[in-house]
């Protein structure tokens, strides 16, 4: 290494922010990351079977959407929609409209009803099979303008299943169907997600999303029936 490069490396090493990390910070983080053993994290199985997770409804993002809905209702309309005050929660839009998810910070006994949530659009699970140039296929969502997102993490490797469809292929050879977001293009080697991100066969991925809702059969793209709906990446 030339002298100048050595000096640059020394300067780089000296600028390492990791050096400033204190033992107190580490202790706090250790405690927090050890506590994950006592949470209900079984609902999220990255890289594993999706059969036993995604059963719970998403909470955090929907809470944000619910918060936005509350704010919009309060600011723009100025009044609560009377009909929604008595409407059962199950009739409201969105997959996670439970009292605990929508307004966990408030006392439910003091605030027995919620205003209607406006503008929330959840995925229906509808998808079509798109065929790429060389015959490879992918299930692509036909839901456009979705703004309520599931946030389970599914990480694994992209491959082709027995039906020639892009899917998650596990080391033991089994596969899980993937439904890619609306606007995904299918290429000979993989898929191009709506923002231009390419994911090719053999590459590792980490997708956010959840079990595709509804009862639609993704066909050859998920012979086992259950497919993971990709909503973020």
């Amino acid at each position, binding site marked *: 290494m030339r002298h100048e490069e050595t000096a640059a490396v020394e300067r780089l090493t000296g600028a390492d922010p990791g050096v400033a990390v204190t033992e107190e*910070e580490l202790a706090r983080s250790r405690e927090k*990351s050890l506590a994950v053993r006592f949470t209900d994290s079984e609902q999220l199985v990255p890289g594993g079977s999706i059969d036993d997770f995604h059963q719970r409804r998403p909470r955090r993002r929907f809470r944000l959407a619910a918060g936005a809905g509350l704010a919009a209702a309060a600011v723009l309309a100025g009044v609560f929609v009377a009909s929604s005050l008595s409407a059962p929660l199950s009739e409201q839009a969105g997959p996670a409209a439970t009292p605990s998810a929508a307004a966990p910070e408030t006392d439910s006994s003091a605030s027995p009803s919620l205003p209607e949530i406006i503008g929330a659009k959840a995925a229906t699970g509808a998808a079509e099979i798109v065929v790429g140039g060389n015959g490879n296929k992918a299930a692509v969502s036909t839901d456009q303008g979705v703004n309520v997102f599931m946030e389970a993490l599914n990480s694994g490797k992209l491959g082709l299943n027995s039906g020639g469809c892009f899917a998650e292929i596990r080391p033991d050879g089994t596969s899980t169907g993937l439904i890619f977001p609306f606007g995904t293009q299918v290429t000979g080697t993989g898929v191009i997600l709506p923002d231009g991100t390419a994911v090719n066969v053999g590459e590792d991925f980490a997708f956010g999303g959840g079990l595709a809702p509804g009862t639609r059969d993704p066909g050859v793209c998920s012979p086992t029936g259950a497919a993971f709906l990709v909503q973020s*990446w």
Partner: protein
Amino acid sequence: MEPARQEHFLAAHSACHDKVYRFFRRRAGDPSAAEDLCAEVFRIAWEKCRQDQELSVLIVFGIARNVLRNHNRSAVRSMNLAQQLERQQTREPVSDDGEVRDALDRLKPEDREVLLLTYWDGFTSAEVAELLDVSATAVRMRLHRARRHLSQLLRAERETEDVQR
């Protein structure tokens, strides 16, 4: 709680936690973000323990890189101001040395990653190669190129400052 799973997890946690936390502190900025991301990594690791999957340091770092990538993507997609600010923080490595930070920001992302994994995170070329899924030769080439480019950028910065004085 299954004792084998516990043991497996605690071994990985003990071997990796501090390195993973520093990895996030270097790239995600403030301690609370690093804490959250670190906890997310070990949540995933805990799940992998349930499936009896291997949890080497490199595998845990692979998870950490994915978690960081998702974190950065979420920040980029966000439309509100707070997260736009977060994006600015997460887009580039955090360093007190402004010139080094600027120089790092001007490197190619793949060169910068190799440089930081080597000199900040302390991985060998072989480990970086495995982590990035490229050949060790490619890592050495990128490292050579990154060092040279970094020194050129720092020299240019110094010369600019000298001229301004």
